[in-house]
């Protein structure tokens, strides 16, 4: 397979670009924020469902499009470009991937159609500590007569508020990290939300003797670790795709500013001190494009080295988005640090995105460990 998009994938990307420019541009992000950090635009999610984006990674047996993660990645990239707020990552890329790769047929047939048609949505609950660490799960799922009793706390749950159910990572009696589907209305759950740097709302959940039925277990015994790993890799790669779009937008706006802004009687883009920094960013972005497409293809092809690809992507994008967003701020000068222009939104969102599902340090270390050094 060539490292490029095919015609259908290109068409999807173009239509996503057009649709979002018309229906969910950065101005919508500003409006939502100014409206007391409103989570989503009410009309957008049904329209996204209408576009078929929630069906891209759903198999045909559930009436999905089975179009693949390269396709979903193109949409997420365009959403990143526009800072579009919609639960596509949380409900489809994370929750959906967990379900699609589950062997629990009952759970799949009841939930997949609902998340695909947008009537219900899922949120993925893994983090417990201040940093991403899938090996340090303390939430427990104790076996009971009817099923399981969930106890523990979760944080940084993306789009957690308003979700219909949570995909919860918890330790079984056997000490295995497993995935469970927990209805949000279950007794014993308390939810608290924080607005973070990116004006997004993230949930902290507390589970106190939350009883769920046996058939709510998503991962079959012995397969919890590999399913969790797949969801984490998917999250890292899909977030990388979203970050790619943010990097493109921030860089393009910065280059445009260098071309038009005049100081000392010359356009500032003529100064070599800025030219060389811009050119170096261009090079790093070329690398980012390659690793994102390779990793998305890796998801579709279920590559054996998916762990490596996911960590390469998230590490590289994490490194580059930091450079590009910092340079975007510096090169915009005073106007860049005002709330009047949009460039600061990219800077703020970049720090949250690069933290989610493992930051630069986490993934660089994971890559070195995978390579056995």
């Amino acid at each position, binding site marked *: 397979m060539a490292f490029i998009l095919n015609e259908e994938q290109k068409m999807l990307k173009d239509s996503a670009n057009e649709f979002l420019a018309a229906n969910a541009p950065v101005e919508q992000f500003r409006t939502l924020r100014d409206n007391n950090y409103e989570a989503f635009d009410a009309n957008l999610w049904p329209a996204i469902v209408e576009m078929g984006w929630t069906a891209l990674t759903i198999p045909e047996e559930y009436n999905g499009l089975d179009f693949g993660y390269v396709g979903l990645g193109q949409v997420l990239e365009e959403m990143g470009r526009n800072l579009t707020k919609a639960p596509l990552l949380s409900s489809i890329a994370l929750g959906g991937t967990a379900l699609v790769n589950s062997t629990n047929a009952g759970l799949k047939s009841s939930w997949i159609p609902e998340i695909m048609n947008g009537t219900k949505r899922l949120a993925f609950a893994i983090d417990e500590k201040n940093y991403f660490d899938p090996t340090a799960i303390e939430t427990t799922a104790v076996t009971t007569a009817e099923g399981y009793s969930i106890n523990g706390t979760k944080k940084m749950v993306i789009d957690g508020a308003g979700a219909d159910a949570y995909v919860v990572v918890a330790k079984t009696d056997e000490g295995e990290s497993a995935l469970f589907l927990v209805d949000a209305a279950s007794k014993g759950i308390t939810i608290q939300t924080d607005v973070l740097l990116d004006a997004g709302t993230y949930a902290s959940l507390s589970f106190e003797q939350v009883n769920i039925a046996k058939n709510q277990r998503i991962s079959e015994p012995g397969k919890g670790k590999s399913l969790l790993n797949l969801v984490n890799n998917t999250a890292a790669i899909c977030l990388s795709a979203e970050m790619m779009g943010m990097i493109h937008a921030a860089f393009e706006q910065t280059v445009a500013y260098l071309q038009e802004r005049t100081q000392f009687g010359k356009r500032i883009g003529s100064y070599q001190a800025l030219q060389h920094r811009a*050119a170096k960013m261009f090079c790093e972005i070329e690398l980012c494009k390659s690793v994102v497409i*390779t990793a998305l293809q890796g998801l579709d092809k279920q590559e054996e080295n998916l762990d490596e690809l996911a960590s390469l992507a998230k590490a590289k994008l994490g490194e580059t988005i930091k450079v590009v967003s910092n340079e975007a701020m510096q090169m915009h000068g005073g106007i860049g640090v005002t709330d009047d222009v949009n460039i600061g939104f990219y800077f703020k969102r970049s720090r949250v995105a690069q933290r989610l599902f493992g930051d630069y340090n986490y993934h660089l270390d994971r890559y070195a*460990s995978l390579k056995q*050094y």
Partner: protein
Amino acid sequence: METTTKTDLEDFRLETRRWLEENCPASMRKPIKDSNDYFWGGRNAIFNNEDQKVWFEKMLAKKWIVPYWDTQYGGGGLSREENNILTQEMTRLGCRKPLFSFGISMLGPALHKFANEEQKMRFLPEITAGKTWWCQGYSEPNAGSDLAGLQTKAEDKGDHYLVTGSKVWTSYADKADWIFCLVRTDFDAPKHNGISFLLIDMASEGVSTRPIKLISGKSPFCETFFDHVKVPKENLIGTLNEGWSIAKYLLTHERQMIGGVGETDQRRELHDIAKDHLPMKDGKITDTVLRNELAVQDMNDKIFEMTIQRIMDEAKTGVNAGALSSFFKYYGTEQNVSRMELMTAITGSDGLVWEGKDKDAMNQARLFCRSKGNTIEGGTSEVQLGIISKRILNLPS
């Protein structure tokens, strides 16, 4: 139709594999270690051993010295797909190139694009037969990064040009048969508009060379002097005073070559070398700072490889990758320099040996020194960044 082609290509692959296995001597499948392992051809061609000769002659008879050039010029006439297969199969077996030649990698593409048919028939078959060793006369003592500021002049003397001046960094000028040269033919025009592209026989009266010693020790680089050298007019390639466009075209090829595009990386992975040299604990390099630097290098090496592949794939669909040669040159050489810096850190005091019993260690110190030239030759990193900012990002002058 499509399936027939695919079957044909599969047949070609199998045939090629069998032919290479039968004809490439075992010693020609070992990685290149030193300069004796290269065969450069030329008027006074010297084979360093019998296998080198056998391998060259077999490939010559097969017309695979330049497999993708037209047969009328002595090429093999292979399609792009067939040539890719041949390259893949040679890489798979580890076959060395039978001939190293700037005639193939640099001058050839320029002649194909800019020379007239008579010139092509005169020079290209000599390249494919390995009969002419070409060198490149671009830089001058006062025209390095500012290449277009070159001052070597070619005066019109009716039936010939009279060339006077000097060139620097001419690789193998002391061994080469011919030189392709940028000369000034109009001193009144703006500097880019008075340059011409001239081919000069190194055996001409008035040509002399002097080797340059680098910080790494020996080097193939020379200075080349032209003292009233008569050059026939038919040796001018392209249009008079329009040589700069040829120069730019050729530099694109040079940059990709230096940046390593199209070369298969047969070097050991850096972290594998590191594991041989550094203390480990629980499967991890104990020097955590160095481990981090290695991981960054590793990450960027891997992704740069993907990027070369991606851009070559895009080029096949018609996207013009020409302007990206500066990116390849800049990134590839910066990566190599940082790799050599890390190799020095990994190999510790052994890697500092300049003269001693351990030949590998000596080689490391010299390679390290040599790498410092990578981000300078073929246009400095700063020149490449300037090209990216102007031609790709359209930043103002």
